[in-house]
């Protein structure tokens, strides 16, 4: 049952939740371009708030393994990936006139970042990886599932192309490889992975219901 790499086991075990995200009206709206631009605007700001906490969680994970320089270097390159993702948000912010400096997080974003930071400050590094992996794997999955057909008329083309890109897939696979290296299939690891996907689902819901 648990044969194969840990990241595969965890992804399969939580596939129904991932598909729940794919079927979510917010994600469907990105896919067919029908999402209200105001909802997207709101989401970008919340996601930027989230990414700052996500970046901090990598840094706190790196502190745990500071004596393993090869692992630290790999975490640093993933942190560069987050900074690149934040640049994408800054681009959206500029074109959509979003103020990224004064974000009031909605409850979905706050619950997710509180969970992530609590884990990052208190748990062992394997659990931190388990709390962080779903975000990357899920977005790669959503991007690839949405990147079908002609996107040229879709206002969210850039978003879809970013998350369906080979570069993003490589980042997700790199994090999964670190998860396999640093985590064991414990109750805490399993919980952290599952809870993070639940947070993703709640984040999409909050982006629709707690609009600006």
């Amino acid at each position, binding site marked *: 049952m648990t044969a194969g790499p840990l990241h595969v086991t965890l992804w399969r075990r939580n596939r129904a939740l991932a598909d729940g995200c794919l079927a979510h009206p917010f994600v469907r709206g990105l896919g067919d371009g029908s999402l209200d631009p105001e909802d997207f605007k709101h989401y970008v700001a919340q996601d930027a708030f989230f990414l700052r906490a996500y970046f901090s969680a990598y840094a706190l994970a790196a502190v745990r393994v500071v004596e393993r320089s090869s692992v630290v270097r790999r975490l640093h390159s993933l942190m560069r990936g987050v900074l690149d993702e934040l640049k994408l948000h800054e681009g959206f912010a500029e074109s959509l006139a979003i103020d990224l400096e004064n974000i009031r997080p909605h*409850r979905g974003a*706050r*619950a997710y*970042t*509180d*969970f992530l*930071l*609590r884990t990052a*400050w*208190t748990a062992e590094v394997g659990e931190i990886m388990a709390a962080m992996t779903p975000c990357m794997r899920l977005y790669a999955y959503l991007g690839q599932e949405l990147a079908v057909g002609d996107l040229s008329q879709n206002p969210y083309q850039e978003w879809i192309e970013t998350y369906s890109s080979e570069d993003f897939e490589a980042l997700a696979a790199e994090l999964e490889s670190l998860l396999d290296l640093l985590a064991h299939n414990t109750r805490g690891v399993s919980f952290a992975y599952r*809870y993070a996907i639940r947070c993703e689902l709640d984040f999409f819901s909050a982006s629709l219901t707690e609009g600006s």
Partner: protein
Amino acid sequence: MKEFAESRLATGAGELWDLGIHAEFLDAVRDGSLPEDVFNRWLVQDYFFVRSFAAFASLTVAKTPRPGQSVLIAGLSALDQELDWFEAHARTRSLDLNCELHPACQRYGDFLIAAGYSEPFQVLLAIFYGVEVAYAVAWGGLEAQGPYAEFINRWTHADFQAYVRTILRLADQHPHPRQQARFNEVMRHEQDFWCMAWEG
């Protein structure tokens, strides 16, 4: 209790203050109509909450300069006794303390611990006050009678109110621009926590 309702942080929270301290759950405790299984469910989740709050209190003690630490250390010691007391009740009521955390309890605990590590002590004092004052005022509106008299008695004691007053003074002595926003978050979590117990 008036001084708590009129404190800077409570008035600044507006309607969130009322939502944090009033609940159908408490109304049912007051008139003795609360079903025992609902009370037990709340008791187990409250035990989990106190464990997180004790960790938060430790972080606050570590960051707060003397002499403010004294009341917080006393509070931490009281929380430790509270955990013993919960565990004793869990045994007599045959409650499972290894069950899963309810999402509302998980979110409240995550909020406390993440803030405990990330925020300066001035902000932590406002959160600390928020948690304790919500308890003192919510339970303080009840008379110690009916099937839950022991519990009401515990959380309406004059010593507890004096302790909360000291934390309020401490928070007021050390203002910070984020105190209000974080205090407001405590009230939202309190509201969710009461609803969790009531709705299951």
